[in-house]
């Protein structure tokens, strides 16, 4: 392959190619709208190909950019100075959790850009914002420096605001501001937590092995300085990391002030230490990590979105143009789940153990609430939006089922199952919801309304469209053989071990889901004739539309029939996370619980 085997080049190319494309489109002469759209589409295609190339499995060796299956560790990690005075690095990498989301992002961006070819208002600005959005999304999934993560998170926010606010429907300003404010509240909470963790963190608590594993750079360790004979910053090259870290260790030992870090992996290692720096009490008897977990969780749950902080979603979806709805549902919501999985749980395990009931409760509530709300909607897009709330509830529930408890004999398999189910559900929902929004858009383009009571009979007029729609809707319904089933079933099966009541409630959602989806199909596609206005405009799907919808359906079938296509990527990494938390549970939490029990016993007699 002609691409260099340098992660710095490849990952940066993936993240910043869209931004570069945006810049290039800015420079296009006025009026070249077709060219702008076409070049934006080409950029998204190129990024998609790059990410697919990145995902090609191969053997694990340092010389190759192939993705090593089955290791579960971070791969292609590199670290470059960015703001050294605050220990902020340009630190990117992928593993089995982020890679599928990266591929999903580039894939949906490509399809959404193809769906945007009909946009004819301020085309250049649209393309520029769209590509910036893609950069932000890809960056969020690859960033391993917390500050960088936060920056990408915010980068993605603003283009989205404009894309909804300028190209949206009649109430676009309201929806855009609502989206922006909700998400901003979340990110402000996240920022607080980021800073809390940063100032509580101390690299001196980690040992050499951990520092090497976390890709902490040597110069980060040298800030404590004053090692006689050591020459700071003499060797900048990447080889011999152990030696570097060893020298760094001496620096740390001698350092008399804490060495803060934004490195997510290092923060996770610290969070799982027996004497974690995050265990210090902060407020109302709760530790730093308890508060950080809560703040981060709320920040991510806004994005997921979970009930009761989900109301930005229906409005944003209803007002957003079709391609943006696809991105919003397909990718943006996943960032919440990704954040919980990547950041909340590894960094704050103790808080996560204590608050598992909260996470699961919110997840289940979202599932039930979203399904009920979807059932009552009259607007097609609103219905799909609420179904997203319901489906993302599975993700939160699957992530939250901390079943490694003493009562379960510390069994890790079920949580592993749940987390994998959540991962699968994220991808599956990315496919099915993007498909549903696109299909709603197809019919909206023709008849310019979305009132569910004024459809009907589409099957006769648009047979291919209806066939694809039913496939995608059945995928959302969780029909076996399609992607939604695997995710839902894996999550639901994992819950019983955590809580029987939640499991029963979660299982009951299958009835509600069937209810609202079948009722929708009946009202839109079945029936003798179309009841709304512009019936003559209901023409068959164009080849372009088929080219967008068919890959989604194909992917839904492939993942439904051969789930290991995805699970082989996610399972090792998820297992890595779960195993490290299980180790923490046995080494750190269990002794604490035993001590608590012993203290109680001592008190009673």
């Amino acid at each position, binding site marked *: 392959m002609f691409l260099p085997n340098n992660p710095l080049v490849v990952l940066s190319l993936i993240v910043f190619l869209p931004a570069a494309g945006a810049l290039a489109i800015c420079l296009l002469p006025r009026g070249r709208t077709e060219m702008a759209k076409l070049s934006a589409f080409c950029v998204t295609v190129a990024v998609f190909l790059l990410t697919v190339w990145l995902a090609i499995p191969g053997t694990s060796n340092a010389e190759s950019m192939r993705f090593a299956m089955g290791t579960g560790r971070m791969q292609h990690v590199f670290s470059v100075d960015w703001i050294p005075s605050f220990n902020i690095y340009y630190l990117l990498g992928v593993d089995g959790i982020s890679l599928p989301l990266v591929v999903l992002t580039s894939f949906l961006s490509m399809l959404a850009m193809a769906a945007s070819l009909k946009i004819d208002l301020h085309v250049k600005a649209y393309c520029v914002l769209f590509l910036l959005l893609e950069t932000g999304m890809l960056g969020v999934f690859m960033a391993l420096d917390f500050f960088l993560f936060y920056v990408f998170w915010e980068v993605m926010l603003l283009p989205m605001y404009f894309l909804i606010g300028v190209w949206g429907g009649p109430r676009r300003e309201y929806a855009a501001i609502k989206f922006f404010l909700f998400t901003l509240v979340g990110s402000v909470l996240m920022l607080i937590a980021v800073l809390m963790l940063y100032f509580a963190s101390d690299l001196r608590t980690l040992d050499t092995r951990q520092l090497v594993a976390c890709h902490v750079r040597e110069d980060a360790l040298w800030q404590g300085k004053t090692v006689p004979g050591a020459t700071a910053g003499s060797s900048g090259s990447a080889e011999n990391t152990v030696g570097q870290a060893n020298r760094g260790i001496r620096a740390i030992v001698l350092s008399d002030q804490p060495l803060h870090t934004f490195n997510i992996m290092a923060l996770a290692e610290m969070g799982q230490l027996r004497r974690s720096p995050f265990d210090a009490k902060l407020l109302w008897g709760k530790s730093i990590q308890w508060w950080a977990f809560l703040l981060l969780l709320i920040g991510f749950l806004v994005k997921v979105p979970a009930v009761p902080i989900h109301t930005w979603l229906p409005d944003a979806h209803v007002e957003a143009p079709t391609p943006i709805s696809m991105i919003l549902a397909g990718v943006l919501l996943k960032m919440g789940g990704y954040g919980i999985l990547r950041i909340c749980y590894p960094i704050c395990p103790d808080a996560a153990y204590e608050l598992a009931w909260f996470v699961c409760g919110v997840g289940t509530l979202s599932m039930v609430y979203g399904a009920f709300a979807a059932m009552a909607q009259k607007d097609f897009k609103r219905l799909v939006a609420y179904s997203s709330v319901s489906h993302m509830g599975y993700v939160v529930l699957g992530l939250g089922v901390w079943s490694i408890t003493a009562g379960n004999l510390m069994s890790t398999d079920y949580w592993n199952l749940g987390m994998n189910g959540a991962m699968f559900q994220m991808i599956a929902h990315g496919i099915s919801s993007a498909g549903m929004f696109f299909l709603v858009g197809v019919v909206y383009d023709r008849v310019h309304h979305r009132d569910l009571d004024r459809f009907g009979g589409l099957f006769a007029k648009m047979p291919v469209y209806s066939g694809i729609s039913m496939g995608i809707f059945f995928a959302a319904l969780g029909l076996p053989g399609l992607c939604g089933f695997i995710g839902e079933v894996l999550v639901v099966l994992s819950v019983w071990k955590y809580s029987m009541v939640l499991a029963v409630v979660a299982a009951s959602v299958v009835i509600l889901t069937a209810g609202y989806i079948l009722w929708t199909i009946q009202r839109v596609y079945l029936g003798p004739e179309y009841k709304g206005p512009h019936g003559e405009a209901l023409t068959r799907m164009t080849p372009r539309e088929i080219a967008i919808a068919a890959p989604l359906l194909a992917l839904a079938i492939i993942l439904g029939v051969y789930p290991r296509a995805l699970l082989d990527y996610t399972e090792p990494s998820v297992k890595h996370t779960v195993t490290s938390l299980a180790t923490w549970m046995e080494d750190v939490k*269990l002794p604490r619980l035993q001590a608590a029990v012993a203290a109680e016993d001592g008190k009673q007699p």
Partner: protein
Amino acid sequence: MNLATTLPLLLGLAWLLPLGSFAVIVLFGPRLGRRGVGAGYLATLAILAGFVLSAVATLGWLSEHPIAAAGHGEAHAAESIPPICGEWYTLAEFGSLRITIGYYIDSLTLVMFSMVTLVASCIHVYSFGYMREELGTVTDPMVTLADGRPLERRGRFCRFYQYLSLFSFSMLGLVVAGNIAMVFVFWELVGICSYLLIGFYIERKSASDAANKAFIVNRVGDFGMLVGLMVIWSTLGTFSFPEIFEQVRPAENHHSLVVPDGMVLAGVKAEVERIVLDAPGPTEAKAAIAANLPDWREQGHGRWLLILAGLGIFCGCVGKSAQFPLHVWLPDAMEGPTPVSALIHAATMVAAGVYLIGRFYPVFAPEVLVVIACVGAITLFMAATIAITATDIKRVLAYSTVSQLGYMTLSLGVGGWLAGLFHLITHAFFKSLLFLCSGSVIHACGTNEMPEMGGLRRKMPWTAYTMLTGALAISGAGIPLLYGLSGFHSKDSILAQAFSFKLENPSLGGVFFWTAASGAAITAFYMFRLWYMTFAGQPRNEHVARHAHESPWVMLGPLVVLAFFAVVAGWTLPVIGWGVPTVLEQARPAGTALGAAGRLVTVPAEHVSHLPPSIHIPVSFIAFLAALAGFVLATAFYGLRRLDPEDARRTFAPIDWFLRRKWLFDELYQAVFVRPVFWIARSVAAVDTRGIDGVADGLAWVTRQVARLDDLIDRVFVDGIVNGIARRTCRIGLGLRSLQTGNLRQYVMWVAVGTVALFVLISLVWDFAIAG
């Protein structure tokens, strides 16, 4: 022949052929042959090949495992033959947990395979005739467009066969499944095929309503099944049938039911947690738990999980097999084309529930069996009574199906594993026969309503007499203690088992037995009522009668084949001993032949009910007399017209009303479930728009008000001060303007005086400063 390798191959091929046919029809459907007729040939060929393959597989099996002996008793006593299990494909794997696509092949699988492919082949062939008009443009008189014209649409011949193929694939997958998760997968798939085929006439509101109802009601059952799956998965850590059976009925315990370790531990979570927290290390904790395990099991911990697992799985069966209280979808499902009703809603899919009870039989505790029996008894009686008053020919058959499925369920519940599954097979033949006959009638008359028919015997003799065969079979016609039609044998064995159950548990068993016996009478009554109203007497509607004609041979052929099997399916061949019950007996789950003693009931062993004449003889005669009574009554009312049905209706008006309203289930569910759900949905949506959005918008409003206040403060205070200073300065300036007289001399005066004044002032200050 090495069965362990060939059988999975043969059945796998038979299973996948319809899938291939489905895929081809999806992609190239309308282009296959003239107007897509090729799709029909393709699908039929696929299922016929499937039948041949299953027949070969069955023969192979029988040649390898001959029936032990022709004698009744020895066959029952024979050791069951271990099934052929394995995996084709792993869907997902998490540590020790695996979800796979596998197979579990025993004689039950083979019999089901043969039955399904045979019935499906007949129905595929039959549909060529029944669905012929779908090849051209169809005018649907039941759908009126907004402008008053009836709907005209393109035919959907390909789509029909496409769905049939998908259904065949799903149904065979369900039967061959090697684990309960795979069963669930295909369970859902047959559900969706049923949905698609019930709603085949998508333009009809009633059809799409019925399809939705079928799927959603089934999902209610699936919810229970999912709970059962969760229990099994979380406590046993596997879905595979042999592994579950091994844990529930371990061989070292003589295959009798025990609560598996996983369930016991899940039942005493708090104690386990305590031990782990108290123990100094994991090894000590494990030892302590292992030591306590027998005690916990003795105390009955975790038994409720075993019961819950059984009830959950049974819940799925209740949905799929249309048992009380989830039976409401099946009569409505008759909106689909009649071949579909015959295939899915009579012979195969609805029987899948019963099949699953039979397959999962080792896991059911006696408590669960009682529930199963109760549900079966209620269903069989209720559905039979509703069938008496129904006038739609397909609805009569639908309720009859529900009732017969109730028989099977009851039989399995009272320990009649073999009897129930035997009835499943015989029922599949005669009920699909009855449905196809009714389809032939509907095809000829263009109506479903029996009061419009009558006297069709002369116009369509083949249909009439094959249907009569079916009616006799379902009524259990035969010579007591000797031979009869297929239904005679299977129903007799069910009643015998119920009688045997009654001997062990007099009160409950009595209810079961007499319900079943009276059900036999009602069955005969409504079946002959149907036959007489349709075929006997004089035509009641001249137009219909003139219009009626015998169906083409492509439809009659399958009728004859099915009629043949409806007669002989219950027979056991002499000498070699081949027959449905003897073959099925080979698949009897280990440990279930002995019966079981629970806290509430004692379930008798099945072979007990066949041996002693004390059971066999009275039961045979009771069954015969009951069926005879039903037949005589029907003949009196509808055949000879000695009694007037209207009289009876007037006499029992409240009962008649109650039965016509189908025991008010639809109204009840509408009021108890549907409306509340929609109400909750609307409230939730309202909470969203008014409550949560209200809070958000309220916060926004408050923020705006604060901003406004801020603005006010800014303007009044901050700006006020600045502007006030400016204004005052301006005013002072204006005041001083009057000094500017323009008079030069005055200016000079001012300058002079001012200077002097300044000097005076300064000198004063100077003085003070010095002094200070």
